[in-house]
């Protein structure tokens, strides 16, 4: 089986400081990869490099495109990369304000990607928006409200709906549950897990919350100081951590 995403030796420096160094990974269709590590360990830098938001200093990011097979994303032209970013890919930001258009209604937020890829029928766009709001448990009568009027959890769910409406195959998530209270987190995770399984999505989830990866991720990568220190199946890494830092991380979780 061809990996959906192949990452080879991605390195990013911020001046003299290392963002992330020599990271390689393969992501197969339908697989969810978790990336954990403390703040400043290079998780978000890595994710931005993979999603094409940042240009890495070295390395390759090869994506198995629908039309042309495996292609180096970093070598693509800007329009191609933008097109990929709004059809086959999705990016869920930690702060919904970064991922949503706060000045327009929820329906328009969901419809924007459809309109960007050429949908020009208002009725159909609206129908899909209603459908997707339903899937992320937002009442259909909130469709014309602006995201400002939504709670944090609803904003995050709206962001997910907006990203998944074009039926992407690969989702990048940066701390999708950050800043939400635990009961809302649990429901969001439940929803995400359902959507990922139902749509057969591949995902890369960056988080510092081990519970999130335990629930969502098939495989786990642990990062420290810009480098990957341990990889493996999620349960294996969490239940039998080998590297000293991973052991520290696992034992730091409060048991209630």
């Amino acid at each position, binding site marked *: 089986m061809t990996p959906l995403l192949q990452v080879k030796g991605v390195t990013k420096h911020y001046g003299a400081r290392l963002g992330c160094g020599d990271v390689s990974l393969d992501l197969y269709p339908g697989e969810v990869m978790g990336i954990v590590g403390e703040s400043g360990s290079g998780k978000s830098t890595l994710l931005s490099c993979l999603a094409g938001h940042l240009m890495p200093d070295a390395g390759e990011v090869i994506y198995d495109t629908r039309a042309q097979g495996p292609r180096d994303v970093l070598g693509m032209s*800007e*329009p191609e990369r*933008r097109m990929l970013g709004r059809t086959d890919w999705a990016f869920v930001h930690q702060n919904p304000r970064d991922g949503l*258009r706060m000045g*327009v*209604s929820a*329906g*328009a937020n969901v*419809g*924007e*990607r459809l*309109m*960007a*890829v050429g949908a*020009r*029928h*208002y*009725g159909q*766009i*609206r129908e899909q928006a209603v459908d997707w709001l339903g899937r992320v448990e937002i009442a259909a009568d909130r*469709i*014309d409200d602006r995201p400002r009027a939504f709670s944090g959890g609803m904003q995050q769910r709206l962001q997910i709906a907006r990203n998944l409406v074009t039926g992407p195959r690969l989702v990048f998530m940066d701390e999708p549950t950050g800043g939400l209270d635990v009961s809302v987190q649990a429901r969001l995770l439940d929803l995400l897990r359902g959507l990922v399984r139902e749509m057969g999505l591949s995902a890369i989830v960056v988080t510092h919350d081990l519970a999130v990866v335990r629930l969502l991720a098939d495989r786990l990568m642990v990062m420290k100081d810009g480098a990957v220190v341990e990889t493996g199946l999620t349960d294996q890494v969490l239940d039998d951590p080998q590297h000293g830092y991973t052991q520290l991380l696992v034992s730091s979780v409060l048991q209630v």
Partner: protein
Amino acid sequence: MTLHDQNYNFGYLDEQTKRMVRRALLKALAIPGYQVPFASREMPMPYGWGTGGVQVTAACLTPEDTLKVIDQGADDTTNAVSIRKFFQRTAGVAVTEHTEQASLIQTRHRIPETPLTEGQILVYQVPIPEPLRFLEPRETETRRMHALEDYGLMYVKLYEDIAHNGEISTAYAYPVKVEGRYVMDPSPIPRFDNPKLESAAIQLFGAGREQRIYALPPYCQVVSLDFEDHPFEASKADHDCDLCGCATSYLDEIIVDDAGGRMFICSDTDFCAGRQAAGHIGRLSGKDTA
């Protein structure tokens, strides 16, 4: 060439400045709908009064030209009168109020009702040339969006209109796509005028404060954006002109007393006067409405 007032260069601007503006105009005509940056000058009038239009007009005027200036369709409002006087004084050109006789027309927010012909130039005053501005505040990003033909966001605005008002409620500055490529703000003309953008005349747009010039060459394709199930519609007040009886012109609504009385009259004063002179009458013709 005779100068009316020796204190000014012909057409107020110095020759180097006119050359610079003309270069921008040629580039704009070569790439219809593309916003060309130009080094806009300080003009002896405040921004928002047509500094962009005046610079374009100054760069296009020749001593043989006949100039007409309109403001919201009218020849006799402050903005129109002062700009017309400005060029009478600084260029000494002939002026007219008749659309057919003018070789160059500077306009604020209207296209004349009388169809323009080949050889005429229509100059628009533009406050904000960027159609995406209120959706995307960053200039770097809007430029990139134009470069990549990334216009989904424009439809988000139209979607919002329909979602909140049941129809596309954008009534002026209605975005258009030029020759299948650039999305352009036609300046705040009523959307009633949008179909007239496909014209035999040269149309030039000048935005002084924003330092942009763009243009539509004659007969170039201009399509108003819309949805398949909510097609574009050129709308106007559902009345006939109360002075000339015209049912097809764009109307201004005028409150005439404090008891709810109102009248609708053509916004294009020259067109209305022409029809009245030809014997057309409307509902309130001959009555004293003042």
